[in-house]
């Protein structure tokens, strides 16, 4: 893929970038993921998902790492959600 540009990366570097992406996404969204896990249909899967996410969610809440998501959700609530919209 576009070897000539010389700036593209091998799969190992891409994997590292993807790992950073996934780790940060989980950290910044863990509280919301914990809430979603509570709504899962299957008991075993729900318990497993909650057990996996809970420690990260606590860490995220402690350092308020979900501020971006909450900020964006506030923007949505203020500008984009319409309780009276005829849905």
């Amino acid at each position, binding site marked *: 893929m576009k070897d000539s540009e010389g700036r593209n990366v*091998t799969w190992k570097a*891409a*994997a590292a970038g993807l790992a950073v992406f996934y780790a940060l996404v989980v950290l910044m*969204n863990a509280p919301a993921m914990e809430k979603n896990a509570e709504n899962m249909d299957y008991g075993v899967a729900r318990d497993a998902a909650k057990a996996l996410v809970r420690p990260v969610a606590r860490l995220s809440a402690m350092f308020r790492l979900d501020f971006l*998501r909450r900020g964006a959700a506030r923007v*949505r609530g203020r500008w984009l*959600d319409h309780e009276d919209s*005829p849905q």
Partner: protein
Amino acid sequence: MLFPTLTFAVFFAVVFGLNWGLAALAERYSGCERGFVSLRKLVLLAASLLFYGWWSWPFALMLLASSVINHGFALWMAGRGERAGRLPVVLAVALNIGVLVFFKYTGFLFNGAVAPLGVKVAGWLGRGDAWIAFLESTQPFLDTIVLPVGISFYTFQALSYVIDVARGEIKPARRWIDFANYLAFFPQLVAGPIVRAGHLIPAMENLPGTQTKLDTARAGVLILVGLFKKMVIADYLAANLADPLFAMPEDFGTIDALMGVYAYTLQIYCDFSAYSDIAIGCALLLGFEFPINFDAPYFSDSFQTFWRRWHISLSSWLRDYLYIPLGGSRRGKARTYANLMLTMFLGGLWHGAGWAFALWGILHGALLAVERMLGRLVSFRPPKWLARIFVFHVVAFLWILFRAGSADGMETFKGVINAFGAVGTGSTLPVAAGVAVLAVGFALQLCDGSRLAWFTDRVRRWPVWVQGGLAAVVFTIILGLAPEGVAPFIYFQF
């Protein structure tokens, strides 16, 4: 499996790891290279079937059967060469189209043509009661026919393979699994782009190795732009503007009708192009390159340009496998116009089984024919900005028919047209936020094609961990801006 879900995120991470991990093992243990390469191909196929089977396992098996049968036809044609004649290609095309027609058009053909015609004939013969009883007995069977997701897309890919082999433009895939991976490759399986066999099968035969340079910057930008288009813009426009209008058009007036039609016009663009963007981005991360599918279609200053920029992979498929074999523009003016109309009529029907889709296609065909005719007869050319506004509004108006075609048909269409006439009715839709989101949706066309190359070039200079970190930040903002839950992509129904 839907792209913007946690399930897909986990699935993709596993597939990415297995794909490249097996590639690394194949190069490290050169003695077992063939084994690892075969295993990698098998993993890719299993991943695609899991992606599709998440929705329906029986239809995943049908997809597998389609790959076996079409590859068999290709081998038959290649093996016998000229001696095979036209029989295998005719059989292959008939079988593929037959399966598509059965799943997609049986109900439409029966209820829309056979049943009403039969009522008249039976009434004439004095056997009306028997015909009604027959109709009532067949309806439960018709109701059991479920449209397999993406069947229109993978049928066209299979057709491109057998036709290209018959024309001698490509050779059959060396192994069945290479063709199966081409047909079922999960990023583009259910909603395109319709990738040509000649483009993807060589890549499936010689899988990208570990030294392949991945354009993570372009992949990341495409995926994030796609997620923003779908999760924030398209889903907002659908829930707040388009769906309310098309559900109860009699409740709305002129301004709302205009907002709703603009909303659907941009919703379908943001929804469909988002799928293509994410598909192209995911494929890039796995080492495969797909052609672009959208190139700022609403900036077009002619209908011909619009169709060169909208769903490019379908337009070019229709051109190469239908319009040109029909004679294209080589057999006189009248035949050219007829070919255009027929191609667009079938293109309309490809989208859905309904008269509204057929009419939508015919009208687009007529516009292309009239534009071609005027181009020859009249030397006057309007200013480009005026042509762009005109083309955009005509296309938007015809989307009403298309949207109605996927709902209650002509009644909805008439309802929306009546709403345009209800001047003075106050607006009940969120106008200010709606206009802002519409403007953003329109502006997102500036991300199509190579328009964002300047930005992608900058991102490419950053270390990969910075790219990953910033992508996580942008993705989190998208998640916050998006409403709860994910609506299916519009083109899944086609």
